[in-house]
Structures are given as C-alpha cells and as structure tokens.
C-alpha cells in the first residue's frame, strides 16, 4: 500500500513546475475529479444549450402553438390534488438538494478533523437528502406523464382559450384542464424535459450510490486506517456539482 505520509523531504523543495510534485497542490484523485466535472459541465451545457435553442426557435408559431409556460404545467404538489401551485414543489426539491449539500460539506469538514462519528452521521443525512430528491423527481415525472407528456409528441400547446383560463388563476386556486385548453405544441418540449432532468436525476442516483459506498468505508474505518478522509472530499465535489447543475436546471426549466 502506498504511503501517504507528509514528511518533508528533498522533493518538497523542488520548484513548482520541475516535476515530481503537484503544481496545483491537490492530490491526483482530486485533480482528476475536477477534470471529470469540467467534462461533465460540458455535457450538461450541450443539453441546456440545445434546450435554449429549441425554445427560442418556438417563440411564436403559425403552425402549432408556442413553447408552453412552465407555470401552467409544473403546478402540482403531492396531497394537494387539483390546486394551482406553480413552482412550490420544485422549490422544495431545491431546498432538499441545498440542505443535502450543506450536510455533505459538513462531512468533509469533519473529515479534516478526522472525526469518524461525525463524518458517518453527516453522510447519512446527505444520503437521506439525495434519496428524498430522487423520490420527488419520480413523483414529478409520474405526474407529468399522467398529464400526457410523451417523448415523441407534445400536447402542451396552450391555446388562446387555455391562456385566458390560466391567466385568471392565482396561487392555490382549483385547477383542471378544460376541453380546448390544449392542442399540439412544439415537439421537443417534453422530450428535452425528460432528457435533461433524467440525466440530472441519474447523476443524483450515481451520487447517492457513491455516497453510500464511501459512508460504508468511513464506518468500517478504512479512511481512519488510511490517515485521511480525502475520499469524502472527492465524493463531495461530485455531489456539489450535481447541486450546481440543478441550480441551472431549476432556472431554465422552471423559473424562465
């Protein structure tokens, strides 16, 4: 097993770019995690740029209807059936992810102090947060599909009558689609929603799996034996990246 001791020696005194030491003063693993996150940032950017381009090419349409307003579609909340509550559920989801991000970073901080008990406790909170987020997203998908969302078509083209109907609603009003409210709209709308939130959800799922693995390792004392909790930091970088992506998914899919 490699030795991780930090005793200063001849190599420490070399100039920064002379080789033999990390010019970034981070470990190999952490640097590679950053490079991976950069490439993953490009992946998500390509999806969001595609979304933006598709949306902007359907601002108005003489053939179908224009891009639907998210407030008219994502307005459901669990156990409050038939009420018009736009943005509320997704704000709760955002809160869950931010909360699980702070418990993750508290686990990293506890790792710096080599406090195994605290690391495990905060990691368990983080896993609970991640699982809760996934549950919320599953509910969101089921509701959306139940409303008629499909990958190959879009029945969320809001007609003039539908816009009038939705325009009269205020927060918390009773809401049900009426005949003639909806017609065919721009096809990529639901497909892009499923692809982007699905891709993000898959990242959350992978993050939860990674977190479970490192929590078990921490609990079993693997990092204690190793002398450092760097693995928690690497898992943390990934988890915060997932949170970061959600900030933009939230902004572009729900707020705008």
């Amino acid at each position, binding site marked *: 097993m490699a030795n991780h001791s930090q005793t200063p020696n001849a190599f420490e005194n070399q100039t920064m770019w002379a080789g033999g030491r990390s010019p970034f003063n981070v470990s*190999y693993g952490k640097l590679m995690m950053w490079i991976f996150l950069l490439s993953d940032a490009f992946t998500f950017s390509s999806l969001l740029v595609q979304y933006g381009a598709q949306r902007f090419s359907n601002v108005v349409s003489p053939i179908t209807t224009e891009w639907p307003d998210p407030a008219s579609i994502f307005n459901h909340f669990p156990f409050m059936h038939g009420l018009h509550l736009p943005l509320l559920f997704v704000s709760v989801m955002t809160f869950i992810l931010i*909360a699980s991000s702070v418990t993750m970073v508290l686990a*990293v901080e506890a790792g710096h102090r080599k406090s195994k008990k605290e690391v495990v406790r905060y990691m368990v909170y983080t896993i609970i947060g991640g699982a809760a987020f996934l549950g919320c997203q599953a509910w969101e998908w089921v509701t959306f599909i139940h409303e008629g969302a499909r990958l190959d078509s879009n029945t969320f083209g809001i007609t003039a009558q539908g816009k009038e109907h939705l325009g009269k609603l205020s927060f918390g009003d009773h809401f049900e689609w009426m005949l003639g409210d909806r017609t065919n709209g721009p096809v990529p709308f639901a497909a892009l929603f499923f692809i982007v939130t699905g891709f993000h959800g898959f990242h959350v799922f992978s993050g939860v799996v990674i977190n479970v693995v490192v929590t078990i390792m921490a609990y079993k004392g693997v990092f204690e034996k190793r002398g450092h909790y760097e693995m928690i930091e690497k898992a943390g970088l990934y988890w915060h990246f997932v949170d970061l992506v959600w900030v933009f998914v939230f902004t572009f899919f729900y707020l705008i």
Partner: protein
Amino acid sequence: MEFYNKPGEYDAINYIPPGESHGTKELWKTFWILLGITIFDFIIYFAMDPGGWRNFIFIFFGLVKAYFIVGAFMHMKYEKITLALIILVPVVFIFGLIAGLLYEGNAITWAKW
C-alpha cells in the same frame, strides 16, 4: 532511474495535501445565502411579470448561487489560482455558445412564418 513512489518516500501520485478545516461558520452562511436566494426567486416569480427583466434576475442569481457552491462548498476559493483558472476559463466559452445559439434559434422562429 529512481522512482518517487517507493514506499515511505514522497510521491507525486499518492501525495495528499494535509486537509485544512476552515470551520463550519462559512458553510452555514453559504447555506443561508443559497436558501435566501431560492426564496427570493420564488417571491420574484409571482411579484414580477414574465419578461426579460425577470429572466435577467433569475439568471443573475443563478450565477450568484453557482459562485457560492463552487467557491465555498467545492472549496475553489482556497485552491491554487492555476487550478481554478484551468477549470473555470473553459466554462466561460459556453456563454458565447449560448448567446450565439439563442440568437440563431430566435431567427428560426421568424423564418418559419
């Protein structure tokens, strides 16, 4: 030739810089800022009419949130500037791509008439 990663010696691949704790105060502060911005977004969503200014506020505060997540939570503020630049500078080019494709997308809208 000698290799650096002989057991017991300094080696660049397995070198772990000593972890430093900056305390939990900043982390909780960041949490409250992120939560505050999310609530602010929620209020603005209903307080303002849809349009360019509202979207500008949402994107601006989205970037503020990104700054706090990357800076404080991902520890980027405390990394070496070389690492921060290598990761952050390529991302800046994405904004150019977004601007270009939104402009072209908008042109397609009107070309369809």
